[in-house]
């Protein structure tokens, strides 16, 4: 039920995973009127930092997702992977990357802001997935101008751009000195709610007062760290329990491993593991 980053996912699905070391998912230009700024699209969500990893239970080496040709029973390298639209049993029409880009050639390298809006007008049901844009070489000043001006005017830019098989409607806004890009759902994708919303009923003042009192007792400021800590503590407790039963397993040396090293959490874990072990 977790949503994944659709842009990275579509790249991975087409066998074109990001180069290790480069964190950009896409590079191109963001423009408004006659100003064009070279940028890179990067992730704003990274679930891999605190998560479980798939391992081979024979040698405890990490697993990698690859495409397999069932006919030849071989792993297929990215350059041998093509995209096909199915028209019948085992019948496909092959569509190339270049042909895909041709569908909207003006939008495949440029995020063109068509208009600016007040982001508060965008109902959260429209939000799909967040990213950041970072400036590429030479674009830094114009980038910061856009960040600063959107911050002062409280506006967000609306744009469409094409990546792979999809055209994304996006909102670009200023967040803590950076440009945040959120993909939005199209209104035609939003399911109607008429059948769900209950009919208007008369609510007694007493009823509302009771709820209001309940809410007032529980007013707080949103502190996302608190919930992350709760989960971290749960993981920690599980690892402690596990480390009593089992020892650490070690993966063999591999030249290149996908993904990132463990996050800050690890220091805390190591420490508590040591305590557990020394007991």
């Amino acid at each position: 039920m977790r949503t994944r980053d659709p842009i990275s996912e579509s790249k991975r699905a087409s066998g074109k995973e990001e180069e290790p070391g480069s964190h950009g998912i896409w590079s191109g230009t963001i423009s408004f009127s006659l100003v064009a700024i070279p940028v890179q699209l990067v992730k704003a969500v990274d679930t891999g930092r605190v998560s479980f990893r798939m391992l081979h239970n024979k040698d405890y080496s990490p697993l990698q997702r690859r495409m397999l040709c069932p006919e030849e029973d071989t792993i297929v390298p990215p350059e041998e992977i093509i995209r096909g639209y199915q028209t019948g049993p085992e019948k496909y029409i092959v569509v190339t990357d270049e042909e895909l880009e041709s569908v909207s050639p003006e939008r495949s390298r440029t995020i063109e802001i068509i208009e600016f809006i007040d982001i508060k007008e965008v109902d959260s049901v429209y939000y799909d997935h967040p990213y950041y844009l970072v400036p590429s070489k030479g674009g830094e000043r114009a980038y910061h101008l856009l960040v600063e001006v959107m911050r002062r005017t409280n506006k967000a830019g609306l744009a469409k751009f094409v990546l792979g098989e999809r055209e994304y409607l996006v909102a670009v806004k200023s967040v803590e000195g950076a440009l945040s890009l959120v993909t939005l759902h199209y209104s035609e994708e939003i399911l109607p709610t008429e059948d769900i919303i209950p009919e208007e009923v008369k609510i007694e003042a007493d009823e509302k007062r009771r709820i209001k009192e309940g809410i007032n007792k529980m007013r707080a400021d949103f502190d996302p760290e608190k919930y992350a800590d709760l989960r971290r503590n749960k993981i920690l407790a599980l690892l402690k329990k596990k480390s009593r039963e089992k020892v650490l397993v070690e993966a063999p040396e591999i030249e290149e491993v996908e993904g990132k090293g463990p996050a800050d959490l690890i220091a805390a874990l190591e420490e508590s593991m040591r305590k557990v072990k020394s007991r």
Partner: protein
Amino acid sequence: MASGAIWKGEINFGNISVPVKLHTSIREERVMFHLLHKRDHVRLRQQMICAYDRQPVPADDQAKGFEVEEGKYVIVDPEELEETVPESSRVIEVHEFVSTGQISAVFLERVYNLEPDGRSKEYTALAKTLTEMAVQGVCTWTMRKRSYIGALHANGRLLRLSTLRYADEVVPAKALELERFSLSEKEIRIASDLINHLSGAFQPEKFKNEHQKKLQGLIDRKARGEKVVVLRPKRLKPTAPDKLLQALEASLKQVA
């Protein structure tokens, strides 16, 4: 259960409880492609392979591990994480209420529409109160053996539940380590004018997913054996840093 209800639960706080059914809020339709092997056009299958011996690993030989030190793992069953939660719990427990707008968009994951399960009186009273007080409830629940945190909010008479990401899954903007640049007040003023000229109300219906139709058109042309002309993507020339003011002035002239 009405069509589309995926789960039933009960919102709980203080001595208030509101039974609800969860419905998905989004339906995406798109042209689906499959990945094929270039040589023989055989449809490819996703397979986990061992990074060490490069051999496919069947599901039975896969384990989950938590990396404690580089290359060192504790083998765990992630489902054990959920073991502390009482089984078959239907409780969506609200822990606190925060002002609407405090939860930054980067945390929002997926929105569920809530339908009252049975009587709608408390449901409606809660929706109205949340709107009046401009607050959202931060809650946790376990659905299909997974723990979630979420924001309970109202949209008119409708209650909604958004699942939230954990703070350690979100990349903070400061992690991007962007350098600051000094900007002239003149540039800022002209750019602000420009943005105000280009501003309007958010009208989502205006944006259609025309791309899907165009994509289908491309496939149909290819199916008929027509030749497809490949157009090169248009690349915009970046505005040179010393031409920024000039580009802003010219833009403003165009729209003003």
